[in-house]
């Protein structure tokens, strides 16, 4: 009897153990509560944590994150296929989110909130992705050595007068590739190639370092004009480090191309993953990112421009002043990325 019992027990035990083991393995896909979304994000800013915490507080939906470079996240989603746990994909530039879309990793969604709050040129036409914040590719010029009038546009940087004065980072940088895409869109490939050649001829030094390095180099006098993202200048202005604030203080911000198409802006954007298990939660999250509160966070936390009109700007963005931005469709310059890289290679832009 006891033998039978113990055999039965053992069998039961084995069955139960197998069941629970399978349950544990399957848990992520079957049992995941509606109260959770999985984020694949290439944003990596500490200030975003307040954003996520607020979303969870408001909706009760918890957020799990993997943060890495967009290209790698795209490869991971491709490899994971239909079982990918990703609900939302977020990039920090238009080129990468459009690539995720062309790789069929995103799905179009309908949301009145998103389509009414976000301008059409900052989102994909079929709702596959939406821009939530903007960064402008601005010029910083040496306060004591150059007049804003001398650097009115990206085109001016390729002119004779700029010989040996231009500082910009490597062409491997996505923001330079996007800028190149916008130049191609504005002038055509041949003219864009001439621009790139002229620009390279004007370099103060071969491209290196990051955007803050360009600002510091202008401040120190290695060159007179640098091309950088707006939020780096803003972050240096409100930095806790004195040398960063001092460097930012020695340069003047110029929004280029105010007389014509406007300053090139890139976006940080997000979309719902093709195989999202919690699509409702994902849409809620995207809608939250377009809310006034979240939009203010982008400005206050990471010095990014909100995409929703009428959202107040925190310091130091409010001191930058109004500017005209290039309303070229983000989808368009993103699609010109590869051609841009080829042109930069030919021009010798390292």
């Amino acid at each position, binding site marked *: 009897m006891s033998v039978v019992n113990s055999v039965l027990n053992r069998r039961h035990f084995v069955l139960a153990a197998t069941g629970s083991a399978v349950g544990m393995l399957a848990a992520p896909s079957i049992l995941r509560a509606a109260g959770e979304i999985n984020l694949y994000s290439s944003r990596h800013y500490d200030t975003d944590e307040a954003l996520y915490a607020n979303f969870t507080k408001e909706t009760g939906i918890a957020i799990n994150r*993997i943060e890495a470079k967009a290209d790698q996240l795209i490869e991971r989603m491709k490899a994971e296929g239909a*079982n990918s746990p990703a609900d939302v994909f977020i990039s920090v530039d238009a080129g990468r989110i459009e690539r995720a879309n062309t790789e069929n990793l995103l799905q179009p969604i309908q949301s009145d909130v998103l389509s009414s709050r976000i301008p059409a040129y900052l989102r994909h036409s079929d709702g596959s992705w939406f821009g939530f914040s903007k960064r402008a590719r601005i010029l910083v010029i040496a306060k004591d050595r150059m007049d804003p009038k001398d650097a009115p546009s990206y085109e001016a940087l390729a002119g004779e007068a700029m010989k040996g004065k231009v500082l910009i980072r490597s062409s491997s940088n996505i923001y330079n590739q996007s800028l190149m895409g916008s130049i191609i869109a504005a002038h055509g490939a041949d003219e864009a190639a001439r621009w790139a050649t002229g620009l390279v001829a004007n370099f103060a030094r071969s491209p290196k370092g990051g955007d803050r390095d360009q600002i510091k180099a202008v401040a120190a006098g290695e060159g007179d004009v640098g091309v950088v993202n707006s939020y780096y200048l803003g972050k240096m202005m409100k930095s806790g480090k004195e040398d960063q604030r001092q460097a930012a203080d020695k340069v003047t911000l110029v929004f280029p191309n105010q007389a014509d198409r406007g300053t090139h802006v890139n976006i940080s954007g997000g979309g719902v993953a093709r195989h999202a298990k919690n699509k409702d939660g994902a849409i809620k999250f995207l809608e939250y990112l377009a809310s006034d509160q979240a939009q203010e966070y982008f400005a206050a936390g990471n010095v990014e421009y909100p995409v929703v009109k009428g959202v107040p700007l925190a310091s130091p963005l409010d001191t930058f002043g109004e500017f005209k931005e290039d309303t070229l469709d983000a989808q368009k310059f993103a699609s010109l990325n590869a051609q841009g890289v080829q042109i930069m290679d030919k021009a010798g832009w390292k």
Partner: protein
Amino acid sequence: MATAQDFRGNPKGLPATKGRSFKVRPNAVFVATGVLALLVLLPIAAVLSSLFDTSGGSLGHLAATILPELVLNTLGLVLMVGLGTAIVGTGTAWLVSACRFPGSRFLQWMLLLPLAMPAYIIGYAYTDFLVFAGPLQTGLRDIFGWTRNDYWFPDIHSLWGVSLMLVLVLYPYVFFLARTAFQEQSRGLLDVARTLGRSPWNVFGTVALPMARPAIAAGVALALMEAIADFGTVQYFGVQTFTTAIYRTWFGMGDRVGAAQLSSALLAFVFLLVAMEHWSRSRQAYYDTSARALKPQPVSLRGWKAVFAFTACAIPILLGFVLPVLILLELHFDGGDGFLGTRLMVYAGNSFLLAGGAAVVVTGCAILTGYCLRRSSGGLSAGLVRFSTMGYAIPGTIIAVGVLIPLGAFDNWLDGLMRNWFGISTGLVLSGSVVALLYAYTVRFLAVANSAIETGFKRIPVHIDDVARTLGRTRRGVIAMVHLPLLRRSVLMSAAIVFVDVLKELPATLIVRPFNFDTLAVRVYQLASDERLSEAATGSLVIVAIGLVPIFLLTRFADRQSEQISASPVIKIPQ
């Protein structure tokens, strides 16, 4: 199953079990090694398989534009890092093992310190200090009233600059392998040379150096592969190499085929390098058969010779460790990480866990591959091992992506199977798990561990195996009672280096990791990619500090071990 234990009890039962072990064991070893090597090759194959896609292929564009420059840059990097690590690593290893001078024992372990310093971090640190806008040049301009065109200053952001950075953090690979080789050379050979009238320098050149050559070559090969695979440093320094071109082709132009073509060219190049080295010493064998009880007696240096030796050993430590740590400390106290408290502790815990796990797993795998290579260096499995360890030269991100592909394929296959049979979805089992990370680390660092273990195996003369077999040990008994005790130092070395490498590793950790799982390297990357170097300095210092632990243990143990070896006969086979 015959175990070594059986023979202790019953040595006479030997012949019966011996036959079995002969037939079964070798196959098991070779099959296991073959499978391991194939698993390591899988991610590389997954990436290279795009070669056969018909779309894309921008090699024509590359050839017309940047290819010549990046070939030259890559060759320059290989040449400078190769020579640099060989000279610094071998020179310092010889000085601390063959000579005694004030501080030599201390320097002996200090010389390993730069190993704990990630290349991209030393790059950031020196950049911050040495560039035009940095404190040094700014100070010079302030003092002398110079402007940009008034003076010349070496540009650290150049091929030589990046080579210097890499030499500073990679020479320890050569140093530790060469030092072990020098220390285990017997006094007899060196004394014979001296008796024959050779000067100490001559002995170094004609006896010690040639005998240590396999170890030095292995170290240089590791340093070179790491240099070729480096992305963070060369990218930041604005030097275009094969690696930056692979990134650019794949991620900038979305051309996977072109990236695969470049990767295979890179592999072919590394294969050629390794093959050349092997071929050039193919007719030499390196067994030292004299009794190791006679350890080489270090020469005591005095006067200017001692000063020279001390300086020669101190410079790499100063430049590769002390100075960058000081710069990082300055950055840390200037800004520092806002997450200093418990969060950083959690990151450190995760880093420690991964590094420790990987050290055990990867070293275990390397003992298998090392043993296989010892048993047969010409077989299929051995060939696979040789080939798979060359993956070390492929950029980390490419390998990491390559790891994702087979894992995802396996998970989806299993999921489909379970759905069909039982109607349940297993989802992703391996993808995004710690197991996946350990797999990625094995793929990435097997080469390093294998070098340490293989070098260790090479120092054990084959006839010792024969003696042990004659004394009644099975092959397994030989491993357990002869090889492993003699390999203890190499095993420790391998574990320590894998530990430190995983601690520093970024691309695979970043992309393969589970949700909400941050490590120190990830934290440093996130801050650095936001160009917040002073915040990143804190995490970097913690990485360096944790990396010092295994190095310290290793040195402690290695010292005691070498004393034991010198005090007793080499092998004790228990009766």
